[in-house]
């Protein structure tokens, strides 16, 4: 059986002089036991296994009675609200919406996090978001559009699972010393094996194609402690988006985030080295389950210079996000000020110290 060099991937050979396995390409030496252990680890752990069970409960006739569905004429998105709340504009693209009928047949949410932050707090947060931004165009701060902030329940898929993983890290430890003739640097190389388990609860993945996934992730964290079983009464006064990204299509993102977290958590247990890098990772999920929920978000779109700027606030925690435009004149002014100051400092520094 031939072993691969952990350093460069070349085929190692037995070196009679040192009585160790030696790589002819990078000249690194290893004990047979260390190589055998590494090979066993890689061959027995195999690929990631991440499968999830997805929900199937649909709206009952009594539950959907009184729920109106609206369709956006521009982006095709479907939103719903109770019969006492009228929807006139799409919360995502600001285009008019038309009523398309009653809600029926679709998957019913299992949980909902009700709004904890009201509209006044959302408006105050928006104004605070504009403060301390010298590159923001002055006309952008005009507050006449602030009333158009809308509370929307965004559909999310929540993923729960127990993960087990076996991860191999490459670690290095260095030391230096000197004698009369030379400076020495010794680097020792290690394989660090970490096998264990970790559990996840309610990893959210955005179930609406109209709600930007990155924006939804920026609003996190949402605390599931504030969630309750879904009832249509919570929708009164708010809009609710219907999911158009299935649980199956959301799984890849949940897997990616879970795997990243597992690797980070295990990485933190490798201590006492100067450098640690991931080498091989195998993550398996058990009891994977997805549930459908609605999460509260305050949304506002501002149109400026023919571009739409979306803003969002977490309706549970009040966290506010949204990218702001940059005023070119102000940008040039601050660049020029920074340049002048740094030029003067650099000039004086060289005059005095060089």
């Amino acid at each position: 059986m031939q072993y691969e060099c952990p350093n460069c991937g070349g085929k190692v050979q037995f070196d009679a002089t040192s009585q160790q396995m030696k790589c002819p390409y990078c000249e690194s030496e290893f004990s047979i036991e260390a190589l055998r252990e590494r090979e066993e680890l890689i061959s027995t752990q195999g690929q990631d296994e991440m499968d999830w069970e997805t929900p199937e409960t649909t709206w009952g006739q009594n539950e959907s009675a009184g729920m109106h569905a609206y369709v956006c004429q521009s982006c095709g998105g479907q939103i719903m609200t109770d019969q006492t709340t009228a929807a006139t504009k799409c919360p995502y693209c600001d285009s008019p919406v038309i009523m398309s009928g009653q809600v029926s047949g679709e998957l019913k949410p299992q949980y909902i996090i009700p709004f904890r932050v009201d509209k006044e707090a959302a408006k105050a947060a928006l104004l605070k978001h504009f403060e301390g931004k010298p590159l923001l165009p002055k006309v952008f701060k005009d507050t006449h559009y602030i009333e158009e902030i809308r509370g929307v329940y965004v559909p999310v898929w929540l993923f729960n699972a127990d993960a087990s993983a076996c991860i191999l890290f490459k670690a290095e430890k260095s030391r230096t010393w000197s004698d009369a003739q030379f400076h020495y640097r010794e680097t020792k190389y290690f394989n660090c094996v970490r096998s264990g388990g970790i559990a996840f609860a309610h990893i959210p993945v955005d179930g609406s194609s109209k709600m930007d996934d990155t924006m939804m992730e920026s609003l996190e964290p949402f605390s599931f402690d504030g969630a309750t079983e879904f009832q249509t009464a919570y929708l009164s006064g708010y809009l609710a988006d219907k999911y158009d990204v299935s649980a199956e299509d959301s799984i890849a993102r949940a897997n990616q985030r879970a795997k990243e977290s597992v690797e980070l958590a295990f990485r933190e247990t490798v201590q006492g080295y100067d450098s640690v890098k991931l080498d091989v990772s195998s993550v398996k999920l058990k009891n994977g389950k997805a549930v459908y929920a609605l999460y509260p978000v305050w949304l506002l779109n501002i149109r400026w210079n023919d571009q739409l700027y979306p803003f969002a606030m977490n309706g549970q925690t009040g966290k506010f996000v949204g990218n702001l435009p940059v005023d070119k004149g102000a940008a040039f002014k601050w660049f020029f000020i920074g340049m002048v100051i740094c030029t003067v400092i650099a000039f004086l520094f060289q005059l005095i110290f060089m």
Partner: protein
Amino acid sequence: MLAMMILLQTLDWMLVLKSILVGLVGGLAVLLFMISKNRSIKAKHEANDYIRKNSLHLWDRRDVYLYRRVEKERREQK
């Protein structure tokens, strides 16, 4: 006027050029920092907020020594 002419003749232009280059880099750094304040939408690549408390447990934890490498550099002789 005379003083200005003397100053211009004695000035080290390489010094001035280096300072301007540092100034350009510094100005750009200031601008990029201020633009970053206008950006608040960032993807979350991990799910650390959703890890169940105290659920991490390791059943295998081994650090296996592989090999060492020694590099040496001759000292400057005085």
